[in-house]
């Protein structure tokens, strides 16, 4: 058993290297779950979508390291 974890981070190759099993690619290194270039409401939407994607990853069985890009 164990605890499912989703890694949300900007650089997928690092997530792969360190062994994350569920990976969601994020926006950028200094602001993985935000985009300061966007108006605040759009930025919140970006963040909400990434977290939802993360939850979908947690709700999905995987056999090996999997990137949830879409």
């Amino acid at each position: 058993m164990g605890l499912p974890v989703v890694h949300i981070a900007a650089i997928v190759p690092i997530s792969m290297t360190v062994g994350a099993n569920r990976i969601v690619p994020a926006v950028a290194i200094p602001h993985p779950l935000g985009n300061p270039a966007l108006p605040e409401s759009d930025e919140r939407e970006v963040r909400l979508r990434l977290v939802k994607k993360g939850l979908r990853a947690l709700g999905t069985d995987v056999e090996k390291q999997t990137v949830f890009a879409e």
Partner: protein
Amino acid sequence: MVRGRYKVVHYLNQFFAQIGGEDKAGIPPQIMEGAVGPGIPLQQALGDEGEIVATVLCGDNYFGENIETAAEAVVELVAPHRPDVFVAGPAFNAGRYGIACGAACTAVRKRLGVPVVTAMYEENPGVELYRREVFVIPAPRSVQGMRETIPKLAGFVRKLGLGQPIGLPQADGYLPRGIRVNAFVERTGAQRAVDMLLAKLKGEAFQTEYAMPTFERIPPSPAIKELSAATIALVTTGGIVPRGNPDRIEAASASKFAAYSIAGTDDLTADAYQTCHGGYDPVYANEDPDRVLPLDAARALERDGTIGRLHNEYYVTVGNATSVANAQKFGKAIAEKLVAAGVDGVILTST
């Protein structure tokens, strides 16, 4: 100076190329004539035999966020100089820089057929990603090791520049690439393996012929069946802490993690939270800490019933040059606490 017999192009990040700090980490690849920063002692160590004709530089964030495009741009900047050797770094334990050095070297070697070498700390993620493609000279963790690294790097650049054959990793001082070469030896594999086993049983030193990878692989945990009934916890390596960093988590090489209550908090605001993580531009995280630890979004999903409950504490450490041993220790300790608290799944965010 005397025109060298072999030409070298050197890769540096924005910091070592003396362009700027984190404020310039987003700049795309560009090229400068001659040697810059660490290229100057490197040139001195090469003497008259070799010449650093140009230095390519790129911001660490730009490279990390656009690995393929950035590597391609580096190739295009390097190509007109027709170097005999391409050298990158040293990157020490800077993760983004190490990846950039590895990716730039790999692209230059594959696209231009130029021999390449870089230098970095053995636990730099760039090593695990690129050691099969690139010669990596081991370097200490920090820039204080520049003085001892430059002569080693220069010695290797010289060998490549003069077209001398490269021997085994131990003999020529680079990290093993995981390439096996046929060789005739006195004793068979079975005999050597038994020798090693006997040495191990006696507590004596022995040298493995096939080292295991450093990073542990954990089988994926089963999915959460019913998210709407699940308790989800937030964990981050991005250093989001209450203002003032009460537990004094280190900005680099963290020796600890911390847990903070988010009971009753719906949004991380700049007046109450900050990042204590070194090594990346903290402006965005400090303006809105939700950009690293997405509490506002998680609360929204708790309110609308997508998840059952958000765990009332979040866990934080700093993933900046943190040793793998410490990171594993933190991970295990955090997991035990979360399991004991009845948490069903974790959202882990990293910068």
